[in-house]
């Protein structure tokens, strides 16, 4: 029944000698790749830089790393991209284990797992302050790039939160672009009568929940109190006692008037995009990098455009949310720091900033004649140039505030808590020491 038939391990018995030989062969086989990689040159090569980025940066960085290599710099890149959550986790593990890549993804400001402040505080980022491009950093965004007055983040430009909308749906319902809050309400009513979902909201994807709050808070808090973040850090202001309350009330007014799709808590980002793209819904409050996704979903990509969310009572009072794009930082203890810093200088050149921003539908830090700003973002330029922007949420003192905001909004949409309870919770979490 168990006759040895010589075909080896599985089909019958095997002699001890054969078994040991097989194991030995396997061990050798496993060692071969090791030998190969040892021969092929390891990391720590002075002409190869390791770069770990989030998948959203892949498109621009693929272009720019190639351009840098092709420009005769003598540098090649070992790149790795992954979804945001996994990059955050693996980067933190690598930073904690003392084995970080030369260049890695970095988020502006403070209050997230890979934000500039948190990593710089731990002494793990290289100072970028002397570089030429840093002079283009807008004054009101300096806190996003800096820690203790030194620049640690390279970001090519700004992204905005606005209203992405479907032009043919507007045209069919006879609706114009609303410039004030009351015009927005009227437009939504008209769209609802026409049988369309006025505002698609994909709250199942948690980070989407914060967008409307941020768009409203920009006008209702930061317009009158630009130093609101400083006040909160000093303990002189709270969420509950500020324009946050009114912002959330307005957010929920949209809910109560039935302007959202049914079941926003069960609707994902992709479904939200599809609704606007296919004309089932008219508008969605979103960040600019999503424009390509909406255009893909639309029958004709020309149908998709964007305007600033009319979060105030008059057009001139509207402030828009605008913040630095996710960017990169240089590891302080990198063995190739000089080469990495040179690459960042290269990235900071105008044409490369233009390339990066074009790839992700962002607005360059500094614009020149050759900057191609996405046509859908044209209406935001006046606000940005006039400084009517607020980078809400890039200065939380700890990384728990933002996720708490998400859950508060989801609970509000499900009518499980009141606005006061939600803001109280956010204040509690804000006060937690990290």
């Amino acid at each position, binding site marked *: *029944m168990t006759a*040895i038939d010589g075909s080896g391990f599985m089909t019958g018995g095997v002699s001890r000698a054969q078994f040991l030989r097989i194991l030995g062969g396997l061990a050798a086989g496993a060692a071969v790749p090791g030998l190969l990689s040892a021969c092929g040159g390891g990391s720590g090569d002075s002409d190869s830089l390791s770069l770990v980025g989030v998948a959203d940066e892949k498109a621009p960085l693929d272009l720019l790393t190639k351009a840098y290599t092709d420009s005769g710099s003598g540098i090649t890149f070992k790149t790795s991209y992954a979804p945001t959550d996994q990059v955050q986790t693996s980067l933190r593990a690598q930073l904690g284990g003392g084995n970080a890549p030369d260049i890695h993804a970095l988020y502006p400001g403070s209050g997230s797992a890979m934000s500039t402040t948190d990593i710089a505080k*731990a002494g793990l980022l290289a100072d970028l302050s002397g570089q030429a491009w840093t002079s283009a950093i807008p004054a009101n965004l300096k806190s996003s790039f800096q820690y203790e007055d030194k620049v640690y983040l390279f970001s090519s430009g700004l992204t905005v939160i606005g209203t992405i909308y479907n032009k043919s749906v507007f045209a069919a319902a006879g609706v114009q672009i609303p410039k004030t809050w009351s015009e927005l309400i009227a437009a939504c009513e008209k769209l609802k009568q026409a049988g369309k979902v006025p505002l698609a909201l994909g709250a*199942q994807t948690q980070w989407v929940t914060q967008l409307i709050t941020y768009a409203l808070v920009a006008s209702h808090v930061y317009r009158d109190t630009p130093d609101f973040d400083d006040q909160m850090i000093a303990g002189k202001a709270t969420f509950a006692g500020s324009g946050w309350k009114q912002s959330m009330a307005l957010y929920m007014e949209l809910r109560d008037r039935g302007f959202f799709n049914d079941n926003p*808590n069960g609707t994902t980002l992709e479904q939200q995009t599809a609704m606007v793209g296919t004309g089932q819904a008219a508008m969605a409050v979103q960040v600019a990098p999503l424009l390509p996704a909406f255009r893909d979903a639309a029958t004709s990509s020309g149908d998709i455009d964007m305007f600033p969310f009319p979060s105030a009572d008059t057009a001139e009072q509207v402030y828009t949310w605008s913040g630095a794009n996710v960017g990169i930082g240089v590891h302080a203890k990198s063995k190739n720091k000089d080469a990495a810093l040179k690459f960042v200088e290269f990235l900071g050149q105008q044409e490369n900033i233009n390339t990066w921003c074009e790839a992700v539908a962002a607005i360059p830090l500094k614009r020149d004649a050759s900057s191609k700003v996405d046509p859908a973002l044209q209406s935001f330029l006046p606000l940005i140039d006039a400084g009517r922007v607020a980078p809400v949420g890039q200065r939380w003192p700890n*990384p728990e505030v933002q996720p708490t905001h998400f859950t508060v909004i989801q609970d509000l949409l*499900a009518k499980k808590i009141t606005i006061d309870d939600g803001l109280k919770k956010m204040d509690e979490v804000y006060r937690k020491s990290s």
Partner: protein
Amino acid sequence: MSTPVLEASPTAPPERPARRRRPRNRLGPPWLFVAPALLCYGAIVLYPSASGLLYAFTDWSGLGDWSFVGLRNFDSLLHDDRALGALRNTLLLTVAIVVVQNGVGLLLALGVHARIKSRMLLRAVFFAPVVVSPVMVAFLWKYVYNPEPNAGLNGLLGAVGLGSLRQDWLGDPSLALWSVAAMVVWQHAGYSMVIFLAGLEGIGKDVQEAATIDGAGPVKRFRYVTWPLLAPATTINVMLSTIGGLKLFDQVFAATGGGPGYATETLSTVLYKEAFVFGRYGYSTAVALVLALFVAAVSLVQIRYLRAREDQT
């Protein structure tokens, strides 16, 4: 009962005398059998986990310096409402998964073990979900769970006249956890099936035939012959699905992130968020330790009971 025949070894004595010889080693195989496993496991799992445990008593954020804080993390855990809510969700999820996944897995295994023509194809079909990465399973199921009345599962219900059963599968806080459970059961039923199949394959045909000859119908055959002989497979399945359920992370996090609100927050999602999102690595290790102790306690009780049951058959 057939006995295996050893290939004649040149060193074996040609004819066996009647007197007994003492067996080589009555106690069992030599330590060499388990040494490599112990070594590898110790180096890769035991030692790092033990040194990782140290952080449960610190305030390490994951980066930079830390200091000892004694039992403060455990004290915070006891007062952490979110963690306690997560514990409740974890238990509910696990019970649902263990019962339904293994029930379905057993039925599938019995089904494809029978001599139906399409059994090989069906095995692959039921196993296919196991092969898809958990994150992608969650993503695909979000299409199924689309709350719109004419899409996904809701659309299907509407098409067959069951429109009143339409739900906001992932957005309704009271339903979201069960939707996630259904998704996990779908993915892992094939897993349970495969293990039950291995058990079924091991039950000899002659045993089954003997029972049939004795006049037992299929149900009686199952209850008195098959089911008891499946005890080892059952032990394995129940234990693995319990531990897996208690530790479940990927599908939950990818499907809902713990939401809406905290409705699907489990101990593993809390653990992950504390460690890698909130920058409270020390606290998360304390949570991990408590989770590990809890799972260990449950498993120990389970294994004693299940092993005793195995020994009875």
